[in-house]
């Protein structure tokens, strides 16, 4: 996963390049939550362009981050899926 942060717009861009399954989700979740705590972004964009596989664990992970962002009063959206 590549992480880009745009300071001006407080935008966290997450480019995911791995196959998203239950195994990866456990690792990804920790990394993403770290980035959220670090930057406190206003918005997260998930880029799934280079994802060749995703199952229900991935859906759970995205919904989970959406809830986290709501909880801290921010927004998250899925880009180009």
């Amino acid at each position, binding site marked *: 996963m590549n992480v880009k942060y745009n300071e001006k717009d407080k935008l966290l861009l997450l480019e995911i390049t791995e196959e998203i*399954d*239950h195994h990866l989700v456990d690792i990804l979740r920790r990394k993403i939550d770290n980035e959220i705590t670090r930057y406190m972004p206003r918005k997260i964009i998930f880029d799934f362009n280079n994802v060749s*596989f995703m199952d229900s664990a991935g859906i759970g992970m995205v919904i989970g981050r959406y809830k986290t962002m709501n909880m801290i009063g921010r927004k998250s959206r899925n880009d180009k899926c």
Partner: protein
Amino acid sequence: MSGLFDNEMKLEFSSKSSNEAFARITVAAFVAQLDPTIEELADIKTAVSEAVTNCIIHGYENKEGIVKIIAKILKNTVMIEVSDTGKGIENVEMARKPLYTSKANLERSGMGFTIMESFMDEIDIQSVLGLGTKVIMKKAIKPKEEDEEETKLG
């Protein structure tokens, strides 16, 4: 296990989440002989991934165990059986409901069985509390049109 099927394979592995990719890729490689489309193969990989994940987090609750996969081919249909000898499902009807999850704290989406149902042609769930769960899925791989090739060549 005689000549009832055209081909079959068995796979047993530890209930570690790192084996999920191994399981779905192995099944996909076995199914490849039916010449599936990318979409059909993606459907099968996703369904297998869901079933194996269920064995690991629900059946064995992340404890040690063996996940077993049997795949059989008869004509253009593949039958995939994924089983564990874990704790079993108390209420299969409930478990099949979209968005239902017994592990909401784990950020599960509750879409596992729904995905298996919609990506495969048939699904049968057998479960006995304390003994384990077996999920049997079937999918027919559509034969590719021969004349399509000829038109291209012509």
